[in-house]
């Protein structure tokens, strides 16, 4: 078996992997990065006009993972048989160099301070009895203040466009009044509001709420980032989510980090390399490297390394830990183990307003990260005491560019014909005159919602698929219903001709066929104790100290905000501690 030696091996060429690779190279360590998908080059694949193709892009999933090779199985409860997720629908993982970071939308948030220590905060404000039985509410083990320099660092690499509220304790602008103080402004000015977002901004203000510009990793003007790499100005082309940005204005690992590594002789990127497992020594307390399948030669190879970074995306990271025997697998019946525990998602519903016949919403205009939001009902920004649920949702208009096939599948709304007579009229009215609003909310962790290995189905590499046991719980359904009720005054202030509010129903089961987002989280969470976390506060495995697991797998709860900004900050945070402490003295960074 061919073997190669390096200081650091990184699994996955997405945001987490690219950040760790750059940091480890700056620390003078050699890096091999393994990506199971193909090379992705915007300069060839993403050119105009060939990539401006809704069918090839968002519908046939050009840049997404192909489930034919490997997928997951899904069930709602432990009493069911999980069945394979045979067709991509509810969540759309990426694959190839850049990962989901190439095709994402670009909404780029800093985690709310309360969300990072939600357990402590809820107990302080509402008492321990407020936490329902069976909810695994936990703190991250790191505070907003500790992460602030890394949120800032990530924004400067991404070229994030936004408007600040408070800098070093002083109010400086029209930003999110609920946002914490920052050490610096955004690297770029906020993106312009599209027509629908501007209407939402005014209506939200009229309704007494506090709208602000969504922080967007879409460049509002030309930008050269921290690594000397250039971004072009976003032209709101609307082919954002699901596409490689032909204007080079959506931040991606491909544009914002990897070009700084391509000419570096001590950085090696191997594509079509599917990692089968992390290899451990005989004590199983130290990783020796990884074994991967070279898919071009159809041969297994190994990389030997001193440091192994899992950066393969939330659920692939957990899958690899289970396949490799890193950490104790979680068992919901005995409530023991941590790998697979606290599997979380987000609780999202869409509402729609139809405006007058002389207001054309031009829904095809948009940028993935741009829009207007309000946080009045997010996190713990409102009194939960009388409400009896934990969590919240930002509410926003985030018009990324609606294209006709997606619009046609949705048709004219809930009460319109789905085909045949009247279908086209309803579709045209909805496409030309409506706007969509999301309640994009948190999702808590529960004892019986988790990840493990499937007993029946295998992938094309012969390994058991990861099994997801997931459904909506009453706490989050009540939260969603409450927040969506708060949208109604905005609909009235918009003077909408008619509107539909989208809510989760009591007892509604998670439906794998309906697109939600790909903001899955948890499964290998960070924390302060190995009894309820798989990673310490530096995202280092409690069990195998030369393994770090970087991704939203570290989140103990699903937050209302999009996760990428926090994933990037945690990646820079972990890298900082690897550089300043771990490399000089390898071993556990947190004493047990």
């Amino acid at each position, binding site marked *: 078996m061919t073997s190669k030696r390096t200081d650091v091996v990184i699994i996955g060429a997405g945001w987490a992997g690219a950040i760790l690779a750059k940091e480890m190279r700056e620390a003078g360590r050699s890096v091999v990065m393994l990506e199971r998908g193909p090379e992705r080059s915007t300069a060839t*694949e993403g050119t*105009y*006009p*060939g*990539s*401006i*193709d*809704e*069918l*090839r892009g968002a*519908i*046939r*999933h050009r840049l997404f993972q*192909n*489930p*034919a090779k490997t*997928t997951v199985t*899904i*069930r*709602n409860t432990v009493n*069911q*048989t*999980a*069945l*394979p*997720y*045979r*067709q991509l629908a509810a969540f759309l993982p990426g694959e190839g160099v850049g990962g989901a970071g190439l095709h994402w939308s670009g909404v780029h948030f800093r985690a709310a301070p309360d969300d990072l220590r939600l357990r402590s905060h809820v107990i302080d404000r509402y008492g321990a009895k407020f936490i329902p039985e069976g909810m695994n509410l936990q703190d991250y083990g790191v505070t907003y203040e500790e992460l602030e320099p890394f949120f800032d660092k990530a924004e400067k690499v991404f070229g994030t466009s936004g408007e600040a509220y408070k800098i070093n304790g002083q109010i400086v602008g029209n930003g999110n009044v609920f946002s914490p103080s920052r050490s610096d402004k955004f690297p770029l000015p906020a993106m312009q509001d*599209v*027509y629908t977002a*501007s209407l939402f901004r005014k209506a939200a203000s009229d309704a007494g709420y506090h709208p602000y510009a969504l922080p967007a990793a879409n460049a509002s003007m030309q930008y050269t980032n921290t690594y000397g790499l250039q971004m072009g100005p976003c032209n*709101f*082309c609307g*082919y954002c989510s699901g596409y490689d940005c032909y204007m080079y204005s959506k931040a991606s690992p491909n544009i914002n980090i990897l070009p700084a590594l391509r000419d570096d002789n001590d950085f090696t990127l191997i594509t079509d390399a599917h990692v089968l497992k992390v290899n451990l020594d005989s004590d199983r307390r130290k990783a020796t490297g990884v074994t991967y399948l070279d898919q071009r030669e159809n041969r297994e190879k190994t990389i030997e390394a001193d440091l192994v970074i899992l950066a393969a995306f939330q659920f692939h990271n957990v899958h690899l830990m289970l396949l490799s025997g890193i950490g104790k697998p979680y068992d919901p019946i005995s409530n023991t183990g941590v790998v697979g525990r606290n599997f979380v998602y987000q609780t999202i519903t869409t509402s729609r307003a139809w*405006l007058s016949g*002389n207001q*054309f919403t*031009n829904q*095809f*205009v948009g940028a993935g990260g741009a829009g207007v939001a309000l946080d009045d009902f997010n996190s713990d920004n409102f009194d939960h005491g009388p409400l009896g649920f934990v969590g919240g949702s930002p509410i926003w208009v985030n018009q990324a560019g609606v294209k*006709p*096939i997606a*619009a*046609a*599948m949705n048709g004219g709304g809930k009460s319109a014909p*789905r*085909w*045949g*007579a009247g279908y*086209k009229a309803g579709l*045209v009215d909805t496409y*030309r005159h409506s706007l969509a609003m999301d309640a994009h909310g948190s999702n808590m962790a529960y004892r019986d919602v988790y990840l493990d290995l499937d007993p*029946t*189905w*295998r992938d*094309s590499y012969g390994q058991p698929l990861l099994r997801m046991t997931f459904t909506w719980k009453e706490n989050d359904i009540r939260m969603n219903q409450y927040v969506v009720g708060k949208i109604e005054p905005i609909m009235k202030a918009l003077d909408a001709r008619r509107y539909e509010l989208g809510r989760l129903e009591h007892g509604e*089961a*998670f439906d*794998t*066929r309906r697109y939600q987002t790909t903001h899955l989280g948890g499964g290998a969470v960070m924390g302060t104790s190995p009894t309820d976390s798989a990673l310490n506060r530096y995202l280092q495995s409690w069990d195998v100290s030369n393994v770090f697991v970087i991704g939203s797998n570290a989140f103990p709860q699903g937050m209302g905000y999009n996760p990428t900004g926090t994933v990037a900050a945690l990646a820079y945070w972990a890298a900082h501690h690897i550089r300043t402490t771990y490399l000089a003295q390898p071993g556990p960074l947190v004493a047990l």
Partner: protein
Amino acid sequence: MSAPSSSRRRFVKNAAGTTAFLLLAGHDFAARAAAAARLDDKPVFFTPDEMRFLNAACDCIFPHDDLGPGASALGVPTFIDRQMNTPYGRGELWYMAGPFQDGPANLGYQLPFAPQDLYRKGIAGANHYARTERGKDFADLHVEEQIEILTAFEGGAVHFQELNARLFFEQLRRNTLEGAFSDPIHGGNRNMEGWILLAFPGARADFMDWVNQEGAAYPFGPVSISGQKA
């Protein structure tokens, strides 16, 4: 109807042309557009009878009306036909490993059938149902009866031999809408009439000056990847 040997030759020639077209890299759009123009509308996958079904059924789903042309005039059946000879049509974008087990609808599709198979079995099942219930193949019935049959399929109570009729109906609806609204390079949305219906600008993808025009309608017609203008 021409002699079998010459139609077989035509089928093979068209299939070879189609395969070459589809093997062209996605970003090589100019070559793809040129190849698309060379293809005629002779089906490459479906039989003439299957095409008759598609012409009728797709027109029920997306009819001709005051607002614009229906599915057959837009080339939707041609689009679907070509899609069958793609990785999608062959089921290569789905996890198709067994075992195959039934489950609740919300856990998604669990049959071993690729889109090619869904259409073969679905069209046969639909015609069998039409002959049994109404005495004729689907395409030979009046539009009102065709609509009643599709409504029954959508309702979920009808079962073909190997699949539920609703599953076939949803596949057909989905591919019909794709055929009406995808770039003409894929065989449908002829003359961009699907986009014109929605006032969608196609592949313009540049709205620097149109971020917010206070509710005014975007004034420019569509362009396609290959440079067609309306």
